[in-house]
Each structure stands twice: as structure tokens, then as C-alpha cells.
């Protein structure tokens, strides 16, 4: 069992960037097709990443680089904790510690655009964090443990108990994936008031590392989506993969059909959905437990 967990964690470290990068490539392809374009190659994200590491390194503040590296390392560490089957609540805490390094990296430059992006990023973190913590709580309520390796051994998939939590989590995934309507901290479209927001001052390999870190983080988030569907039956793995793909497609659809909102609205929506969907589900579970 222990070796299995180690193997999965190692596989995560090795494969997550490839899988998520590929998903990202398909994302761009599908988005392009939705808009009636041909779109870039599905390998485009890898070309972009490779280029970023090959570019000359410019910097406005040298302190930025080590903080970004710390950000990356912390995200990977959180992922190892998650895929290694450890405590999911600690994974969430570790993710928020990682996010702090990103914030500090981007504000260290005294740049107006990255400052703007940073504060929006902070609002995003604040919007998402309650739901992330609640997901961990939900698993504890449904299965009785925070440990991922015990959660997957349940006989009935947690989704049966946690539909509200699932809805809330999918909602904040749009924020986490930086998709429209919530792409307010960094934008993937040009000519905007945020430029590149939190990553504005990150050049070449710095930006490459942030991209890589985001891929690792997305792997964790999609992993949590899958966790809702896993149970002791091996068939559930197929269900989990299908669920992940459906959620992923849904995010692309939302991205392509909505316009960006203001951060005030985002905060209200995210918290509102969290309270209504997850809060109600939480109350019901508590009542059932007695």
C-alpha cells in the first residue's frame, strides 16, 4: 500500500505537467473551434513553456525569482501530499501557503499592473478558500477521515453525500483555472486594464515556472474533482475520469460564453454559492449524522 502511494506521488510529479499541458492544449483547440477558428496545435502549451525557459532573463527585482521557485516547490509539495494520500485539509493549507509566495513575488517589484493583479489575486484566493476548506470538511463528514488514501476506500462514492459541495467546488474551479468570467487577476487576452496582472513582471523562466506551478495546481484541483467519484470499486476510476473531463469541458464552455465580471461580484457570487450549496449540504449532513 505504501509503495503504491509513493508510486502515485512520483507519477504525479513526473506526469502532471504533461497531462495538464495536453489538456490545456486541447482547451485552446476546443475554444478556437467554438469561436470558428482553427486554433493552435494541441502541443502549443509545451512550445510556449519551452520558449519561456529559453528567453533572456530580465528582472525588476531579483528577489522575485526565489519566491517564484518557492511557490512552485510548495505547489508540488501540496500535490505530493494529495496524491500520496495524506490529509486533504493540510493540502489546502499548504496550497494557500504556496499562493502567498506568488503574492509576495509579484508585489516585490512595485509595478502598478502587478499590484493591481496581486490584489485581485488576493480577492480570488479569499473567494475560493472557504469552499476549498469546506470540501475537506465535506469529505470528513461523509467518510469520517481527512486522509485521501482512506477516502478512496469508501464503499459509496462521496458524491452521493456531497452534491452541494461538488456544485460549490466546480463553481470556484472557474476562478481557480483563471477562466472567464473570473479571469480578473491575470488575463489571457490582450489590451486590458490588468495587462497580465499578477504575472506582469515575471519574465521568461519566471513566467514559465508560474505556468508550470499552475499546471501542477490544476492537477490537484482536478484530482479533488475525481475524489468525489472514487470508491473501493475499480470501475469508479473510469467514472472519476469521465467526471473530470466533463467538468473540464464545462469550464471551457463557461469560459467561452461569458464576459468578465468585477471582483465585487465575483466575491459575492463565490461566497453566495459556497454558503448556499455547500452550507445547505453541510447542514443536511449534520442533521443526518444527528
Amino acid at each position, binding site marked *: 500500500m505504501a509503495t503504491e502511494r509513493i508510486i502515485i506521488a512520483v507519477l504525479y510529479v513526473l506526469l502532471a505537467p504533461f497531462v495538464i499541458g495536453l489538456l490545456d492544449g486541447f482547451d485552446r483547440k476546443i475554444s478556437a473551434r467554438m469561436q470558428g477558428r482553427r486554433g493552435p496545435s494541441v502541443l502549443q502549451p509545451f512550445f510556449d513553456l519551452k520558449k519561456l525557459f529559453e528567453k*533572456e*532573463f*530580465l*528582472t*525588476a*527585482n*531579483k*528577489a522575485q*525569482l*526565489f*519566491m517564484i*521557485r*518557492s511557490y512552485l*516547490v*510548495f505547489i508540488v*509539495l501540496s500535490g505530493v501530499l494529495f496524491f500520496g494520500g*495524506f*490529509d486533504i*485539509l*493540510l493540502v489546502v*493549507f*499548504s496550497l*494557500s*501557503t504556496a499562493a*502567498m509566495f506568488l*503574492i*509576495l513575488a509579484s*508585489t*516585490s*517589484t*512595485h*509595478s*502598478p*499592473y*502587478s499590484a493591481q493583479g*496581486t*490584489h485581485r489575486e*488576493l*480577492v480570488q*484566493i*479569499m473567494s475560493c*478558500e*472557504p469552499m476549498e*476548506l*469546506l470540501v475537506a*470538511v465535506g469529505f*470528513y463528514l461523509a467518510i469520517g477521515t*481527512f486522509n485521501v488514501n482512506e477516502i478512496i476506500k469508501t464503499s459509496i462514492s462521496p458524491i452521493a453525500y456531497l452534491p452541494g459541495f461538488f456544485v460549490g467546488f466546480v463553481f470556484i474551479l472557474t476562478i481557480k483555472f483563471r477562466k472567464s468570467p473570473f479571469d480578473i487577476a491575470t488575463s489571457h487576452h490582450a489590451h486590458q486594464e490588468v*495587462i497580465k496582472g499578477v504575472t*506582469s*513582471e515575471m*519574465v521568461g523562466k519566471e513566467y514559465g515556472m508560474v505556468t508550470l506551478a499552475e499546471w501542477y495546481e490544476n492537477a490537484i484541483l482536478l484530482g479533488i474533482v475525481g475524489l468525489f467519484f472514487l470508491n473501493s470499486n475499480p470501475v469508479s476510476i473510469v467514472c472519476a475520469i469521465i467526471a473530470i473531463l466533463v467538468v473540464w469541458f464545462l469550464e471551457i464552455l463557461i469560459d467561452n460564453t461569458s464576459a468578465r465580471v468585477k471582483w465585487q461580484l465575483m*466575491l459575492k457570487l463565490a461566497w453566495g454559492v459556497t*454558503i448556499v450549496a455547500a*452550507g445547505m449540504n*453541510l*447542514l443536511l449532513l*449534520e*442533521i443526518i449524522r*444527528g
Partner: protein
Amino acid sequence: MEMLVTALICLPFLWAILPAVIHNSKCRAFFVYLGCGIVIALSVFTAVKWYLAGGQATDFDLPYREAFDHVILVGDIFLMCLITYLSFKYKKGVISLLAIVQTVLVAALELFGPKVQESAALHFDWLTFVMILIIGVVGSLIGIYAVGYMHGYHIHHHKELTDRRSFFLAMIFVFFGAMFGLVFSQSLIWLYFFWEITSVTSFLLIGYTRTEEAINNSFKALWMNLLGGCGIAAAIAVGVLLYQNVNLYDMIKIAILSKYMGIPNTLCLLPIACLAFAALTKSAQFPFSGWLLGAMVAPTPSSALLHSATMVKAGVYLLIRISVAMADNYVGNMVALVGGFTFLAASCLAISVSDGKKVLAYSTISNLGLIVACTGCGYEETIWAAVFLVIFHAVSKSMLFQCVGAIENTTGSRDVEDMQGLISLFPKLAVVLMIGIAGMFLAPFGMLISKWAALKAFIDTTSVYVSTLMVLFICFGSATTMFYWTKWLSKILGASGKEKSRDLTKKNEYISMFFHAFMMVALILGFPWLSSHVLKPMSNEMFGTDVQVISYQNIIIMIVLLVGVFVIPAINYVLTKNTKAKQVITYMGGANCGDNFNFVSSTGDPKEMHISNFYMEDIMGEKKLFTPAIMVSTVIIIVYMIIVIGGAF
């Protein structure tokens, strides 16, 4: 042991006379240092001696118990007279009513009431052990800091104010004495006396500058704390009249027993409810948070003292003490809900303010809210979490207040917005500030461990709606907490265009701050030891069980995270130090004036660029949230008090 404890309680009171009568600045400073040194030594010695003796909970009396009983009675009456005099002097006579009612009640019961059971006056156990170390070490360091700070305060910054340093330093010692007395007391009458002393001393310290604002705020603190005192007086009255017993520990035992014996248990809960109410006022929970916010007007050492080692900790101490009796009942629910609500509301409010001390004040309230919520739950896990939070909070808050005070003395501003790039201007101060902030919220420091345990315990709480609400409070509260600390941290670590200037911080201020920073790091590193050697016996003593609150595996993970927070950035720093990089200016649409701090304005002249944090005043502002928060929490308290009191009769 008796002698040591007697010395611990009495010495600070007596030592307070020295700074009060010596007016030569140098000489007084010497005696304050000496006094603080003695208090540290004495408290550590007492604690270590008790620890080495096996750490058994013991009951004992002071020598000349009778005499002390009389002193306390006279002291009560003296305090009442003092309050009455001062409140009439400043035309706030109504407040004296609160003091008169409670003191007369307690004195009358003591003199004419039924005879109460005799029992030992003092008690020493693991919780006391933790508390005396906090009060002795953290408190005394604040005392040391105060000498240097108050010198700068009067000589450099506030020449217009009357120099009453003698009084100030004397009050600090009185505070120590009262706090030591409070944590040792077993008899409620003794506890009440020390409780009143802390109320009055804090009132005097807040009003130190005698400006109109200071006086108003000090009276606010006074009436709120006196209201809490009424709670204790009521508990004494109930105890004397119903059980002929004023022993705190007996009351707790009665409350716990009644739960299992099927006696109508609300009657037994009544004194507990009164004490809990008193503790809520003292630990500045909503709706009584106003006084702690008002306390900012006082010079920084007194804020540090009120916020970290003393005063608010008195409330929290009492709650932890009675928490065993609050598990799964109405009193516990009240305390948990008020605490959880305060945790969330105060952290929202902290987002909207930019005054450094005010942020700290709100964060104290918020953090205490979490501690209070933990005690209200009353499970092993939550008590474990609460004690951890108390320790971490005491050290880091004291350090933060001292640091902000030093920054204010040096830069002339304590506004968070003015701390842009502190790391390059005053690196030493910035590092201290950062360690303090990290200690307050960052994984894997105290907050994380405690939050983990608290969340787990709240999910398991039996009451459905309390459990749901508490989980929501904690989840949302941690998000808002992260927000205001991170944005402060990012200010400090930013770049600054200002010229370096001289650091005016005194050496003794640094000694105190560095010692705090050292303690902080030691606490983090010693966390597994602390858990198994102090908190485990404590929980064993309180609950009679010996549960491992946090699994071995999670301790390992936390240590990994802990090492991570220090080591990962450090390694990365070393690895990237020699990276070749071309220095560029930041992107401002191409309009920088050659550096990162100015841009070309529409008139063609360079204009300085200011970067400001988000304060969300239209969502989280004080104007918007403060009054509703007070109303909600008042309703919670009133409803539950009605349930408890109504159920009792």
C-alpha cells in the same frame, strides 16, 4: 512552593512602588529592568520547579491566609471608591453604579452571607504553568521594552504630554501581580479581586495621555470590564446562596457531574454562564470589542500588554478553565457562537483598516474569537488548539505591537500604507514584523495546527446548527485572515523609493523584540515536544483521557511544511543568488521616468506613483459591519442567557 507563589503574586505589587517613587530617569530604568528580570526569573523558576517535581496539580494556601482575605476585602472596597471618584471627576457617574453594585454584593455576601466551605485558595496545574510563563516572560519583556519606548515617546515625539512615566511603569508591575494572582486563584472571591485590578489598571493605562479621546476610551473599557465583573459577582452570589461554595473548581465539578447525574443541569450551569459572560467581556469578543479597539490610543507598551500577555488572556484563561463544563451545553454553544462570529467579523473588519495598530487590534479580537470558540466547544482537541493559540498569540502579538511601535517612533507613521518597502529601509524591524505576521497566520505555525484541530472538533460537535455555523465561521474567517495579513506582508516586502534614514529604535527595544523572535522560532521548533510534554498532560488532567489529538503522520507533515517555509525559500535564495539577470524597470505602459517609482504625468513632469492595497471599505468597512456585528452578537448572548437563566428557575 507556597513561598515562591506568594512571592510571585506579591512582589510585583510591592515592586510597583519603586518606579512610582523614583523620578530619576536612569535610576528608575534600572529598577524596572531589575524588577522585570526578577519577575522573569521567578516565574520561570517556579514553573520549572513545578515541572521537575512531576507536574502534579496541587492545592495550597498562602501563608497568613486570613490576612490576605482581609486585604482583598479592603482592596475591593478601595477599588470601588477609586472608580466612583474617577467616574464622578470625569462626569461619568453612571459607570460607578456598576462598580458599587458588584462590590457591595460581593462584600455583603462575604461579611453577612451564609458561611462558605473553606478550601485552599490557590491551585497550580498545567494551565497555570503555561499562563505564568506567558505572563512572566512575555509580560516582563514588554516591561523592558516600555522603558526605552516611553523615553522616546516623551522626549522625542509627544513633548506636549505630561510625563507620567513613573505611574505608567508602576501600573505595569501592578498588572503582573494581578495576572499572577488571577491564574492561581481557586476562590472566586480572590479571582474577582484580581479581575477588578486588571480592569482598573487597564482603565488607567488607556487613559494615560489624558486627552479627550483617551479618557473616553478608557471609560468605555472600564464600563465593559465592570460589566464583566458583575458576571463574576453574580457567579459568586449564586455559589454562596445555592452551594455555600465559592470555589471555581468545585463549581466546574458540579456542572460536569450534573450532566451525568440527571439533575436539572441548567441550575448548575448558571455560575458557569456568569463566568463565561465575564470572560467574554474581558477577551473583547463582540459585542464588547469596542474597548480593545479604543485601547490603541494608549502608548504602545500598554497596547502590547493588554493584547498579548495580560488582560485579554485573563478572559481566555477563565474560559479554558471552565471549558470542561461547557462541552455540549447551552453555555458552550453561546461561547462558541460568539467566538466564531467574532473570528469572522473581526477579520473582515481588519481588511478595511490601514492603521497598523488597528489591524493588530482587530486581529487580536479575531484570534481571540477563535480561541474562545475552541473553548466553547470544550473537547480535548479544541482545548489543545486553544492553548496552542494562546501561546503563539501571546508571543507574536507582543512582538508585533512592539515592532509597530518602534516603526512609528522611527518613521513617524504606523499606517500600513507607509510601510512600503520596509525590508530595504529598516531590515531589522521588517524581519521582526515578518516573523510576527508569519506566526499569526502562516502554515505551519500555531494558527494552522490549531485551525486543523478546531475544524475537526467542530465537525464532531453534537449540536447540529452550532456545528454547521462554526465550520462556516472558521472556513470564511480563515480566508479573510489570510487576506489582511498577506497584503500587509506584501507591503513590507515591496520595493521602496525612499531614502534610507536612521533607525531610532533603542537597544532595549531590540533586545525585547529579538528575544520574542527567538522564542517564536523556538516554539515552532519545539512544537512536537510542547504537544507531548505540556499539552498532553494538561488534557489528561482536564479530561482524564490521554488522546493523541493530532496523528503522528500529520505531525510529520507539519514538520515538513515547517521546514519547507524556512528551508525552501532559503535554498532557492542561495540557488538563485548568482543567476545572471538584466535589470529592467517595471512596466508602466512605457511611461516610467527611469525608475520604478515615478511616471511621466500628462503635463510631462515626473509624478510619484503610489501603490495602495485593497481595503474594500464598501463591503467590509467599519461603518458597514461594526454595528450589525454588535447587534448579532448581542442577540446571541441575550438569547442564550435567557435560556440558561430561564432554565435554572
